[in-house]
Structures are given as C-alpha cells and as structure tokens.
C-alpha cells in the first residue's frame, strides 16, 4: 500500500515538473521572451509573433496572438499603429504603465509578468505586447472571432415570446441576461474548469434574492470537479448532480435568455458555460419539467390547461402500455364486456403474446424516433412514411400485431412528445412499468408507481425538495405548479429558493 502511494507521489511530482515551466516569469530581454513563447507554442502554426519597432526610438516591441481569434483591424489601428508612430516613447523612464495609459487605444488592458497568465490570455483571443527592456507584458483584449448570430432555439419554440436564443459565445450570452435584468444586484462570477480545456464558466445570480446556501453548495461542488476538459454543459451536470445515477435531472438547462432571467428572479442560479448555448439553472425541481416559458406569455387559463395536459400526458405515456398489458392479460374482468370482445377479435391470429407485441412495437417506435432525430428533413419524411405504413397498417393487416396495441403505442408516443425534456426518464419508467405489470399485473404497476413516487419524493436538488409544492394540496402550492394563476395572484417567490426575500409582486403597493 505504501509503495502505491509512493509511486503515485512520484508520478504526481513528475507531472508537476513537466507542467510548471522552470521560469514562470518573463525576462527583461525581448529575445528571451520570444524564444520562450515560441518554445511553448512550438508546432503550433496558428501562433503568430509580429515584431516591430518605434519609428523614433527604435525600441523593439512584439505582439503575440493566435491567428483569427483577434480582431485584425483593432490590432493594427489601436496597438501597432500607435506603438510605431508614438513620438514620445524613448525615455528610459517610460514604463509599461505609461504605454498602457498614453499609447494603447484599447478599452481593456492589463499588465502581467506571469507566463501562465499570458499563455491563457493568448489562447482566449487576447493580444500580448512585449516591449524590449521591460519585465512585464501588456495583455490587450482584442477578441474578435466569428460567432453565430442569436437565433430561435429549435428545441424550445414558443408562439408568443422572444425569438432570441443563447449562442456559443459566453459574453454574448451574458449580455442577453444583463439586458433583461438591469440591476447592479445581478452578479456574474467567472470560474475556469477543466485542466486542459480551461473552459470559462460564469455563475449568475441576483444578490438579495438568491439563497446563499445553494450558492455555497454549488461552489463547493464545482470545486470538486477535476477533469481534463468540459466540452459542454452536460459534462458539468453529470459531475455535480445530486443523485448521479437517477434518471431525473436535478439541474435544469435552457437555451432561452428569457427563461434564464425568469429563473434568476425566482432565486435560481444560472451557470453559463463558454462554447455552449445551453445555460444551466440550479436548483431544478420536478414541476419545472412541465413549465414552458410560453406559459407566462399567454392567457393563464390556457396555460393552466396546457400544464394539466402535460402532466396528464406524462402519466399516460409512462402507464398506458403497462395498464393495457395488466388489463388484457391479468384482469380481463375489469374491461367492459363489449370492449374485451373487440380486443379479443383483434387478437385473433396474432402469433405473439401481448407483452412481446407491445415490447416490439415500443422498441420500433423508439428506433424510429432515434433515427428521425438526426436525419435531414428530406429523409425524415421517408422514415415517417416507412414507419407509418410498415409498422402501422401493414403489420396490423398481416396480423403480426393487433390494432389495439398499435393504438396504445401511438398514444404513448404522442403523449411522450408533449414533455420532450422528460424523454429519457420516460422511456426508462415506461419499460420498467411494462415489465412489472407483465409479471404481476396491476399489482406490479402500482408497485412500480409507488417506487417512482418514493424516488421522486426523496430526491433533492441542492437541498431543495424535488417535489417542492407538490407535497400537499393547498392554494399556495397550486399557484404556479400544476396550473398557473394570474400574475396578480403570484405574490411570493418559492419559499426554499429565496427564503429571505420572498415578496415578488405587491399589487397596489400594500405593506406586507
């Protein structure tokens, strides 16, 4: 055992040796610095060093950047031009500070002598200016790569409401949130994650509303992340999730800035990750699966009906195959007489047991769904024709499957599409309930449902009960959960999310 630890230590030391450069600071000589960075970026053809000198004093300078990550016009006009043309340079007493304050035409400059920091800045699209004879370099913000224009997110379409969606650019995403919440209480805290990728992430919250305990917990969990790279927000989700193996998510995600800012107002914390348009929100509770941003833009009667429909379809999509199996193979006495006669008529000549039939058709549907999702739309129609014709009518006509099973699977599929965020858990629950009810009938189904409820009610998201406001039937609990009441009635924020600042809406300015 000791040997192992010792070995580990040796390996760790070795890693440290190669990682940390023996001289982590810059030197005074420009040539040395250039050589150092050329060595750091060896075999990297995108790394560019441009050397020049001041026209009057012949002071040698050089800028370093990564090709195409900078705004070329900006670098030419605001860095190279003033540095070459500036007449007052030359005094030996001139420091980097003077250049920063008098020469460079940039809004964001910083000086540094740390090789590590300079390397990071270069890789993020900044330009670094080295001046011969000075131990410090100037980091100038010149980020200017191409980004996608904000467009409407495909997965979260709304009929009424903003058409803007997050992009892959962290900064652009932050401005989208900021534009919606013009308060100095809105805080943005940067963090860097990933040993190799050094991904920039940003925690957003509104001070005074956010529950500090949740924020501390989130920071603690982010501290534990020790991974080589973060390629998307999904990686973070899995690393800091409350129940890592539970199919239900305890961290939300959205592509819509209006949703994110709405969540911030409720006391949630948003995590914006550079390079992905999916912004995470914590905590996430079960009812959020059924809430759509559109609910808040349309008539509350209509949105309440929609929410009830979504909840109803969730129940249907997980249970209808299981209940069909239980009723037709265990409890035939529960089906009305005329109905059981027509089911029996449909079953005549079908070679497989009902359970196998149901399983095969459900699998076929999942296959169709998975095939269609990443296909270009032209192929998509072909798939739907094949799926609809072959699986639907042809299979029924050939008496390979019975019509009621096709109807049940179709119902399952349609109702499953109403809650797209729940797709993953739904498939798992649907199949496990199906197995249970084919073993034990309705008894097994109820058994599964009880298990599901136990799972949901014991789950927490960052200390918040997952089934918050769904534990007991009361007026307050109903307000923005299974239905949405008028904004006039929504007066308080959720108790657990914003415990110290609950008043949200105070119509008429009444004292609370």
């Amino acid at each position: 055992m000791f040997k192992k630890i010792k070995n580990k230590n040796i390996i760790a030391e070795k890693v440290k040796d190669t990682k940390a450069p023996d001289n982590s600071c810059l030197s005074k000589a420009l040539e040395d610095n250039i050589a150092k960075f050329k060595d750091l970026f060896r075999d990297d053809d995108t790394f560019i060093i441009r050397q020049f000198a001041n026209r009057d004093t012949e002071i040698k300078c050089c800028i370093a950047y990564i090709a195409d990550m900078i705004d070329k016009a900006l670098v030419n006009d605001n860095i190279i031009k003033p540095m070459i043309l500036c007449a007052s340079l030359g005094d030996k007493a001139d420091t980097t500070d003077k250049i920063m304050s008098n020469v460079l035409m940039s809004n964001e400059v910083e000086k540094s002598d740390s090789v590590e920091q300079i390397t990071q800045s270069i890789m993020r699209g900044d330009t670094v200016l080295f001046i011969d004879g000075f131990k410090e370099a100037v980091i100038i913000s010149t980020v200017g790569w191409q980004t996608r224009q904000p467009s409407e997110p495909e997965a979260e379409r709304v009929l009424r409401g903003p058409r803007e969606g997050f992009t892959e650019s962290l900064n652009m995403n932050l401005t989208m949130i900021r534009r919606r919440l013009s308060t100095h209480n809105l805080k943005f805290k940067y963090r860097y994650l990933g040993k190799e990728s050094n991904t920039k992430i940003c925690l957003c919250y509104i001070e005074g509303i956010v529950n500090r305990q949740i924020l501390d917990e989130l920071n603690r969990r982010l501290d534990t992340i020790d991974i080589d790279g973060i390629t998307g927000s999904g990686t973070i989700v899995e690393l800091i999730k409350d129940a890592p193996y539970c199919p239900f998510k305890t961290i939300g995600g959205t592509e819509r800035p209006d949703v994110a800012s709405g969540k911030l107002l409720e006391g949630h914390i948003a995590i914006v990750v550079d390079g992905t348009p999916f912004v995470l929100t914590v905590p996430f509770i079960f009812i959020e699966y059924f809430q759509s941003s559109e609910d808040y833009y349309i008539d509350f009667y209509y949105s309440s009906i929609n929410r009830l429909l979504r909840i109803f379809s969730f129940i249907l999509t997980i249970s209808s195959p299981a209940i069909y199996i239980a009723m037709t193979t265990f409890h035939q006495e529960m089906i009305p007489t005329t109905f059981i006669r027509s089911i029996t008529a449909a079953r005549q000549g079908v070679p497989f047991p009902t359970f196998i039939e149901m399983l095969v058709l459900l699998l076929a549907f999942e296959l169709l769904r998975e095939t269609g999702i990443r296909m270009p739309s032209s192929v998509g129609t072909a798939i739907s024709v094949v799926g609809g014709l072959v699986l639907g009518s042809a299979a029924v006509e050939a008496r390979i499957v019975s019509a009621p099973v096709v109807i049940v699977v179709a119902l399952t599929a349609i109702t499953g599409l109403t809650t797209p965020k729940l797709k993953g858990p739904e498939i798992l629950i649907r199949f496990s309930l199906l197995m249970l009810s084919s073993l034990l009938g309705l008894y097994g189904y109820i058994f599964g449902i009880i298990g599901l409820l136990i799972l949901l009610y014991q789950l927490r998201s960052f200390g918040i009960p997952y089934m918050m406001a769904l534990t007991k039937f009361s007026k307050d609990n109903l307000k923005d959960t299974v239905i949405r009441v008028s904004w006039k009635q929504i007066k308080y924020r959720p108790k657990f999310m914003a415990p110290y600042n609950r008043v949200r809406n105070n119509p008429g300015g009444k004292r609370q």
Partner: protein
Amino acid sequence: MKKKLYSAKLILLSGLILLNSIALCGCWNYRDIEKSSLVSGFAIDKNKAGDKYMLTVEIIDYEMSGKEAKQSAKYIQSEGKTVFDAIRNVIDILGKRLYWAHASIVIISEEIAKEGIIPAIDLILRDAEIRSEMYILISTEKTAGEVLLQDPLVSQTSSDIIEYMLAEQKDVSKAPAVEVYKFLNDYESGGSAIPAIKLTEHMSKKTAEIAGTAIFKTDKLIGYLNTNESKCFLFVRNEIKRGLITLNENSINDTDNITLEIFKSKTKLKPSYADNKLTMNIDILTEVSIAEMSTSVDYSSEKNIGKLKKDAEEKIKASIEAVIKKVQLEYNSDIFDFGTIVKAYKPSVWRQIEQDWDESIFKGLEVAVNVRIKIRNCGFSSKPLYKNSRN
C-alpha cells in the same frame, strides 16, 4: 461498510416485497385474452336422468374472414355432478378454458328451481371469477337451455338480448331485474322473486320473452305472477322507475283508452301497531302524464282531470290489493319484504311475532294501500283530438 449494509438491507427488503406480492395477490398469472373463450351467459338444467347438472354455455367465437375477425355466438353443453364439475368438463369438449367474468345472465330451469335453487347458484357467489352481479332468470319452458338457444330477431348474442331485456325493464316495469347477490339477500329474509322467461313465436322465430315474476319461498319455486301483477309487485317494492298504466275510462266502449306514462314513483312502507293489530301502510306517490288517449273527454278541465286521477288511483289500489292478497293466501311468501320493514320500524313487535311470521302472521297481515297520483301534463296537445263526442 455502513453503505454496503444499507444496500444489502435494501435488496433484501425489496426482494421480500416482491415475493410477498407474488404470493399474496389474487390473479397473478399472465394469460393472453384469446387463449380462453369469453362466456356471455349460461343456463343450468338437470339431465334426463335427473342426477347430473347439464350446462348450456354461450361463448363468443371468432371466425377469420379475410382480414377481419367476425364474432358470433356458439353453444356448448356439458354434464357434471356439480355445476363446477360441468364447467371444467367443457375443456374436454372445447379444448379451451372458459372465461366467466363477463357472463351476464344465468337461466335456471323450473325443475331445479322447484327442488331448490341454492345448490345450482352457490358457485356463482363463491367463485372469484364468476360475478355475482349477473342477472338470474327462471325458465318457464321445459329446460333452461332452450331459452338460451333461442332464435334471436337481431344479430346479437342471446345472452346480450336477455341482459338488455332486464336492464331496460325500467321503461316497462313488467318484471324485476334481479342480480344473483340480490336474490341471495332476499333469500336470507324469507321470500324472493326472480324474473321468469319463456319462449314465444315472433315472426316465425322462437324468441325469448319476459314472462312476469317467479316467486320463491326459501329457495323453492312456488308460483308465478304475470306481467301485470308484477307491476303491482314492483309498486310495493318501490322499484318502479317508468312504465305505463292503461285505463279504460267511461267504459262506454272498449276503445276509450287512456295511457298514463309514469315519470316518477315513490313508495313508502310503514307498519303501524294498534290494539294488538299490525297494519302495513303502503303510500304510493306516482307522477304521470297523459301519454295517449282515444276518448273525446276534455281533460283540461279541473273536474275531468280530477275524475281521471281518482279512477287511476282506484284502479292501481285495487290491483295492488289483489296481488298482495294473492301472494298472502296462495303463496304465503314475503316477497314484498314486509318482515324487514316491521323489524326496522317496530323491533319490539317483531321480536314477538318473528317466530310465527312465515307461518301465519304474514298471511293475515292487514294492508292499507294509499295511492296518490299526480298528473303532470297531457303532452303537447291539451284538447282531445276527437272532435265529435261519441257519447
């Protein structure tokens, strides 16, 4: 370590629950629908020798015609020492298990009913699969099987037709619709009544038809009430929902008929006890409307409608009294459930007479019938259509 113990506990616990659920639940076996035949109704007879039960079972059969499965009724007969034995013997003939949960009627032959009906229907109440809320009927034909094997006028199964006959009795009120469990409840209290069914010829087809009420004393059939008497019986039992009352007003000629349609009827039974004499007060309040009339009398006048009301009340009263008398004297079976009413209202009196109730008290029970009729309206036309009065 602790965590390991916890998960071991969890596995054990869930295993225990799963095992229990298999062991404790009732119907646990997976069975595809088409593997058993649906029974829609059955009839119980004794065989010719009289030592075995003979079952006539109607099942739903499916015939593949092209892509469609066509459903039709098929019939099987099997014999057995007991009813259940006969049911199991069906497998020998059919090769399929029968599924009884959807059986809706059972027809018992007169022969069995006279000997005692309980041995034949015990299984229906006791078995988990056969429902005790199926309708029970008595066949007035030689066998019960031939009623089930009727030649229906419409393309429905025989059992369905008979089931609907009883379910729709509320529109005609000519026979009680009695489920097996209801019959057994009445049987506990002494007298009970079951609808009777016979075969008649309609359009040169032998079809089943409701034939009034069969009266039981304990579990033995002792006689019948015809359909008109059955209506009176239903009036007393407060089981009239709708139905018709036909009157022959003015009695000048036979065509002067008036039909009253019952909309609502309520019967209150209350015993009174005075001077050592028990009297059963029957208060009937019936709301009717004039549905049809072939007279020229104008019933929009206060006087005429009052007369009509009185006539109807008297007619109903007379026929109810006659039926009660008949049951008391001829059959002496408390099918009206008077005993239960006395027990509920006058428990002290009941304790004295309980012993003699079946023997003599019911027979000599004084009955005071009080009928009140409310005529709501006379339909869309207030005046008679006959212009020239024929009288």
